Structure formats: structure tokens, C-alpha cells
């Protein structure tokens, strides 16, 4: 998306640029949601004995987010190496 009055890349109309920006935003939201769901399932005890997150759960969440993020990067690299370009 042109951020400072610089022209759009060759062959890209403004409509296309908006479309790509929207797709990118949707991708980020989806990534966040999946990450959040996955790490909650992996880190939080389903018995819900209390409404606070304990220290163990907090550390687990931090590490889970970090690892998920790294996996996201790895898979992205592998996909682009294979000739597919997700984004």
C-alpha cells in the first residue's frame, strides 16, 4: 500500500492494492486467532479451577507464542523455496 504518495508498483491498480491490503490484514487476524486457540489448548488446564492464569500457564503461553511464530516463519520459507508465494 503506498504510504507516502509514492506511486504503486508497476501494473498494480489502486483497487488491487486495497484488495491485497485487505487480504494481508485478514491473514494476520487469522494467524492471531489460530495461534491463540492453539496455545490456549496446549497450555491451559481445561478444569478451569480459577479465573486467573497461573505462572506456569503464563510462561507456557509466552513460549508457545514464540515457537508458533518461528514455525510460521519456517513454513513460510519452505513454501517460498518451493516456488509458492503465500504473501
Amino acid at each position, binding site marked *: 500500500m503506498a504510504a507516502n504518495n509514492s506511486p504503486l508498483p508497476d501494473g498494480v491498480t489502486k483497487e488491487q492494492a486495497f484488495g491485497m491490503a485487505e487480504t494481508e490484514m485478514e491473514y*494476520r487476524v487469522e494467524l492471531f486467532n489460530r495461534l491463540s486457540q492453539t496455545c490456549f489448548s496446549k497450555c491451559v488446564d481445561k478444569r478451569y479451577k480459577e479465573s486467573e492464569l497461573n505462572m506456569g*500457564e503464563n510462561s507456557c503461553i*509466552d513460549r508457545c507464542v514464540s515457537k508458533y*511464530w518461528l514455525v510460521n516463519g519456517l513454513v513460510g520459507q519452505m513454501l517460498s523455496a518451493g516456488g509458492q508465494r503465500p504473501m
Partner: protein
Amino acid sequence: MDKNMLAGLEGMPEEDKMRMASMIDQLQIRDSLKMYNSLVERCFTDCVDDFTRKSLKKQEESCVARCAEKFLKHSMRVGMRFAELNQGAATPDN
């Protein structure tokens, strides 16, 4: 996701900025509704197992309340970490 995303779009013409803001608003609404649905399903699945009557038992109600609150706190924490990673901040490995 919030309007801080707009901070990078300073030089855009006003109408483009408004279009982006409206896009972000729509995404936020859609995202909140999705979250609502998935949270209900999660807490129901984890807390409710007894179908001998239609009303919720007291412990089912408290379980759902704790489940929802826990998920919301978790979601906030994940949001913070996600934002840090997005900005490329190095976090201590512990």
C-alpha cells in the same frame, strides 16, 4: 488489530485513509463475533457434560465464567507477545 495500523499510512489521501479505517472496523467486528462463537463452543465443550436437565448446574455456570475470563486474559497476553514479535523485538529465551 487496531487503528495503530493506520499510523503507517500518513501520506495517503483522506478518502483512502477512511477506506482503510472502514476495512479495519469491519475486520474487527467480524473477528469479535468469531471469537464470541468459538469461546462459547470451547467453554460449553469443556464445562458442560450433564444433560439430565435443561438448566445449567451451579458448577457448570462457574466453570463457564472462569473459562471465559481465563480465555480473555490469555488472549490479551497473546496479543502483547504477538505485537512484540511483529515489531521484531527480541524476547528473552526462558
